[in-house]
């Protein structure tokens, strides 16, 4: 018997529909589970009070501060390096063997899993440079980890700026750097911000690279040489050591909501860029 191609076609279409919605369903289920189980335990007190008894009671205030310190400082460190690299690769050189090697380096950094960043940060910053388990060690490790994302998104954003913007600037007598600063970068800013936001999201959710460099002290950090605990690390410890399921869900909810919010803002900015130049 010959199978009717039209029937196969219809069948496949239905199957693909089912699979696509199943996959989206997984996302919805993940967020919904955390929302439902976590929402009851979240209030202002949870966000702004100190944990007691290893996190069994009380809030997550020091971990929020730890997360914010880690994220802001690593972005401050990685952004100039990343955007600078992107400017160099797009504006200052032609495709040469050097740019090929640099691109290879960036690709390789992007592929290294976070546990190896943790291993490197631990031996290099914590032990060899004697920074100890500190926010500084964590910041430097995470900055290197997010660098490839910032470089690649900035490069895309800079490449998307139309060529005649630059030609007009040069024809008015501007130098290369003036053109980059006053013409190219302002137009590429939303795209660069997208890369930064995506990196923020990654840093907020990171655990493996953070726990071995920044440590997991629950005290409120007062300087960058103090150890500190991020929300992700706190959640991991709560869940793994079975300290408190309620607090774990609540922490997970704060974590996931902040990451989703950050990423949604990132995609919104990216779409604005795409619609602007196309």
């Amino acid at each position, binding site marked *: 018997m010959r199978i009717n191609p039209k029937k196969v076609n219809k069948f496949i279409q239905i199957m693909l529909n089912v*699979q696509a919605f199943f996959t989206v369903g997984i996302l919805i289920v993940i967020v919904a589970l955390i929302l439902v189980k976590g929402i009851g335990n979240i209030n202002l007190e949870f966000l702004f009070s100190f944990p007691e008894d290893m996190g069994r009671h009380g809030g997550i205030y020091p971990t929020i501060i730890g997360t914010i310190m880690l994220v802001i400082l690593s972005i401050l460190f990685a952004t100039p390096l990343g955007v600078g690299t992107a400017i160099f690769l797009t504006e200052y050189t032609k495709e040469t063997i050097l740019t090929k090697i640099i691109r290879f380096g960036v690709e390789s950094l992007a592929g290294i899993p976070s546990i*190896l960043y943790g291993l490197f940060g631990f031996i290099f910053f914590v032990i060899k440079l004697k920074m100890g388990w500190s926010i500084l060690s964590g910041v430097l490790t995470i900055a290197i980890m997010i660098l490839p994302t910032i470089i690649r998104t900035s490069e895309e954003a800079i490449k998307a700026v139309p060529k005649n913007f630059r030609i007009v600037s040069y024809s008015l007598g501007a130098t290369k750097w003036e053109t980059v600063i006053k013409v190219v970068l302002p137009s590429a800013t939303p795209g660069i911000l997208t890369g930064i936001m995506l990196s923020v*999201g990654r840093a907020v959710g990171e655990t493996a690279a953070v726990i071995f460099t920044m440590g997991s002290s629950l005290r409120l950090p007062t300087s960058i040489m103090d150890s500190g605990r991020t929300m992700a690390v706190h959640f991991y410890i709560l869940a793994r050591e079975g300290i408190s399921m309620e607090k774990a869900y609540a922490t997970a909810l704060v974590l996931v909501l902040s990451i989703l919010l950050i990423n949604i803002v990132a995609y919104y900015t990216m779409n604005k860029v795409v619609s602007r130049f196309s």
Partner: protein
Amino acid sequence: MVHMNRWVSIREKIVKNTLTVFALSSLLFLFLIFIFILIEGLPLFLKVGLKNIIFGFKWAPTKGYFGIFPMIISSFLVTFGALIIGAPLGLSCAIYLAEYSGKRLKMILKPALELLAGIPSVVYGFLGVIYIVPIVREYLGGSGFSLISTSIVLGIMILPTIISISFDSIMSVPRSYREGSYAMGATKWQTIFKVVLPAARSGILASFILGMGRAIGETMAVIMIAGNALKIPTNITDPLRTLTGNIALELAYATGDHRLGLFSTGIVLLIIIMALNYLANFGIKRRI
């Protein structure tokens, strides 16, 4: 006005040199990562012997045994398990998004799937422990902390990678290929299966390899679900320990040779990851 102000030309030079240094910093970081993991990990290979580490079955670092063979096998097992679950699902999603979904649906589905990538691995691990481990324990037996549970969670975690790269490579197949196929009287599925997918195959393959890279490098979710037992699993319900898990579980307290052993584990992981990335880049470059 014709000749440039002296200060301006000096400034341009400084800027260019600074940017060059910035661009070289990525290479410096990569170099440092390699060097420091190698410096710590290599001496043990010389002391204990390559064979006794790579093909050794016993991991008892405080007693001088550094065999990571079961972990290498376990890492590959969970990675292939993840691929068996993630690849068909991810590819179907990519085909659906690229060929079947309307524009408006695509606008919602694509970012939603990419958000799946933003959820931290500890959250996947936690939900795996709470929901998947008990189901496996109930229906398949064992403790539930197992190869199959880990594969399911990793399979879900690599979906965004597979979907987004497969999607891009399907979208980059020229329209004329499809029109040619329709003109011959082929149905939509025949066109996709016989024309579009073969044309996009190197990109799709690259998406699978990158997915594997993500799965084999994944740590936190894995140590929460895998059970971390030190032997080669013989059954899908057996617990196992991966290379990443070995590092993460012991780094905090390891000293002396024990710590060096974790860096040796790191070297093996680094080599596997670099090889996978190289393969994937090769696939992406060959994409039409």
